[in-house]
């Protein structure tokens, strides 16, 4: 990415002239605000940034970002973004998707983008519902969810986005929450900095069709007890009084209260580079556990786009810049006088 002589941008530079058409009170507003806030800091010229989305409330995002944007079709954004990033490695490419767009119809493109480690920043707005189509359950809705399409409750065990990303061997996996402005900004920044596929699940309230899905996690009263804020190299502590933590019992994590012989030293220390810790974290969920937020995993691996472009450079180095006339005449040719 050319970051050379970028003039200093401000938040307003990333705002478009389009009316934002989400429902009043939708969690998407906050996400938009945080992204617009962080972007000037990235030092990437606006014209070198592209947002690609699928279909869903979340996927309207590109219209509101004053960068290049492509609001495509349901579930296909990672595929479109892959083609763009591979052929234009100079661009910074973001994908915005929803739990339906990215995990239901688009699940396959998502896991393939992740396993290839295409240098895409993928923001998945997880509201555990289909917003745009007015309230059917999604692959992240809890078992037994009563929605328009499941009046007797859903019979599907939900997908765990972070676990799935780990299953696809993603090199950057993180989770944040719509209303946690500061935390979200940090995660967006970290994702932007990661070289490779960055997968970020953003828990997002749909106040129309799934209001309060994350209430326990965001209520000022309870959040200290329900959020486990991850910090690399730091023990896993949470709770209003910072007196609770995660300890390993064999290979099984458990919640413990500090004191009574349990000290910080007994707690699991977060290590973004340890896949087993990422695995343990991705499976921690209420009511038994707090919900981990932060960066679960970071790994460095060559990116797909870089490898693809390296092949082109190597081929040029080896065979020279292609000469069509020569190529056409290659092989068994003959001349009729």
């Amino acid at each position, binding site marked *: 990415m050319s970051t050379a002589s970028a003039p200093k941008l401000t938040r307003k530079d990333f705002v*478009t002239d*389009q009316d934002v058409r989400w429902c009043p009170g939708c969690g998407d507003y906050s996400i938009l605000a945080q992204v617009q806030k962080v972007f000037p800091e990235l030092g990437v*010229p*606006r*014209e*070198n940034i*592209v947002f*690609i989305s699928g*279909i869903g409330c979340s996927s309207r995002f*590109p*219209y509101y970002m*004053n*960068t*290049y*944007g*492509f*609001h*495509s*079709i349901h579930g*296909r954004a990672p*595929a*479109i*973004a*892959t*083609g*763009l*990033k*591979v*052929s*234009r490695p*100079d*661009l910074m490419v973001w994908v915005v998707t929803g739990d339906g767009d990215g995990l239901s119809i688009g699940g*396959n*493109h998502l896991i*393939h983008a992740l396993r290839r480690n295409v240098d895409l920043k993928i923001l998945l707005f997880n509201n555990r519902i289909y917003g745009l189509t007015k309230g059917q359950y999604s692959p992240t809705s809890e078992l037994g969810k009563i929605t328009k399409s499941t009046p007797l409750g859903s019979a599907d065990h939900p997908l765990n986005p972070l676990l799935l990303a780990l299953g696809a061997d993603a090199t950057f996996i993180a989770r944040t929450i719509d209303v946690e402005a500061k935390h979200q900004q940090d995660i967006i920044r970290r994702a932007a900095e990661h070289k490779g596929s960055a997968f970020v699940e953003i828990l997002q309230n749909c106040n129309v069709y799934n209001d309060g899905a994350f209430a326990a996690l965001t209520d000022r009263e309870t959040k200290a007890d329900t959020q486990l804020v991850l910090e690399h190299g730091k023990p896993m502590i949470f709770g209003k009084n910072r007196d609770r933590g995660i300890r390993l019992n064999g290979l099984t994590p458990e919640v413990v209260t500090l004191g009574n012989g349990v000290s910080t030293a007994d707690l699991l220390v977060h290590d973004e580079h340890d896949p087993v810790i990422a695995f343990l974290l991705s499976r921690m969920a209420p009511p038994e556990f707090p919900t981990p937020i932060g960066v679960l995993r970071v790994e460095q691996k060559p990116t797909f786009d870089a490898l*693809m472009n390296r*092949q*082109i450079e*190597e*081929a*040029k180095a*080896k*065979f*020279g*810049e*292609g000469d*069509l*006339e020569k*190529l*056409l*005449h290659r*092989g*068994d*040719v*003959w*001349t*009729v*006088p």
Partner: protein
Amino acid sequence: MATNPIGAPLQKPVQERESVVIRFAGDSGDGMQLTGMQFTTESVLAGNDIGTLPDFPAEIRAPAGTLYGVSAFQVNFSSKNVYTAGDDLDALVVMNPAALKTNLPDLKPNGILIYDTAEFTESNLKKAEYTQNPLEDGSLDKYQVYPVEITKITTLALKDLNLPNRSVMRCRNFFALGVVSWLFNRPIEPTQKWIKERFRRNPEVMEANLRALQAGYHYGENTEIFASSYEVKPAPIAPGTYRNITGNTATALGFLAAAYKAGLPLFLGSYPITPASDVLHELATFKNFNVYTFQAEDEIAGVGSALGAAFGGAIGITTTAGPGMNLKAETIGLAAAVELPLVITDIQRAGPSTGMPTKPEQADLLQALYGRHGEAPLPVIAAATPADCFYAAFEAVRIAVKYMTPVILLTDGYLANASEPWLLPAVSDLPEIKVEFRTDPHGFFPYLRDETTLARPWVRPGTPGLEHRIGGLEKDYLTGNISYAPLNHEQMVRVRYRKMAKITQDIPPTKIDGPDRGKLLVIGWGSTYGSIAAAVKEFQEQGKAVSHVHLRYLNPLPADLGGIIARFDKVLVPEMNMGQLLRVLRAEYLVDAVGLNKIQGRPFKVAEIAARIARMLEE
């Protein structure tokens, strides 16, 4: 006196023939495709015009000796212009009973039949589902039968090389090629050269194959079995440099050439599928031409990635066959809505569903025209011959870029694998493909259209001041912002139609092969070109007012086509489907055209078309 390629004077008399159709058939492991290709090269260098038709089994490697494991390659070589790989066979070489059983029906009465004696064992006959031995029951009586001890003599010839039996067996095809090369006076040097190049790292195998070839040649010359050999004189061929090319290679080169001329990287997003995969394989070797080849997770990602690349300013293309076309439909519709250039190539095979994947058909035309929801008209272009795939692919890119539209390119499984000599064009003679990315922010609107083409501007992300958003929702006519305004929608639907109509300005006047008015006009498209051309020619030579129009542009249709049709009494539309172009022409011109429809997974014979023409002229 002619000398044979080994330098010895020819001993036997030579009969001249205008043209010969020969087929090599054997087990898939017998190397029949290679034999056919080499025989083709020899014929081409002998100055003949040629047409070829490979026929693979559907199975990867069927058990030896089975009927469904037979692989064949047909060559038509001639002293006149060749249009097809030929109808019935003048000569048939079979390596085993299964090959005999599946191919004999195509041999002309009194045709030459060469077979390997060693393979007609009881067990092989059983595998071929023969209840009686065809060599003995009189069923070959009407042919010139030449039993050749292919296995035996090859074994003998290679004896002192001490190769494992398996390797020896692998040389039998070159022995057979040697025999046939002698029989038809083909030069064997090209094959010798090929063997030397191919096996340069394996001198033993090289030697074995060279010996087998030579042994076959000598066998023809020296044994009593053939009373004479045959000669087919060179054809009157336009001067220039040629190469033999299959449709899939030509398609790959056409795309490459177009991107080269446009000065842009080429991005192929594709998912393997028979018979399209070779275009991917081919393009994957051209990375030094700024070619990106991306084997995607499925067809949707294939076309999606190509569209993403097009958004980024590359020449985006995708290749597939029928089943993949279904899956790409939604993304093609998106491309139509966002008006980005993109070429979608459908290398048609016999359907419906998985159908017969290795067999050609022309039954995806209506899908190409209408296979998307909503009103999403697109240009559709078809290639007529293997070499023509080059120009069709090139033209598809040119139209896509000029008019900012996805274009559908149709070829088929026959064109894909068949080959013909191709007069190589000079790169400088290829049409220009001019791309001007918009860079000026002044007065910029994403959907502001060029007046003559109705194309919207192509903007590369990375261009300062032109940041904008596109998408699949209906857009305002000028700004491209989302719009649900009723009249705006109608205007947008109609302008997308008008853009198609504009493309007629790029279509050259329709070439009428034959008189420009008369009794019967035969209209075709795609790979039926050769069969139709040859059939029509027969009647023209008899002075009949029969003409042939072969359509490259299926949408939009050429502006002059209606006028041409009106000047003929009758219209015949031969297609390898149930009458798809026929429907289009009937609806468009209200002409009572009739269809000749063959849906057997193989091309028309010239005779089949000729018979129908004759009937229509009589009626």
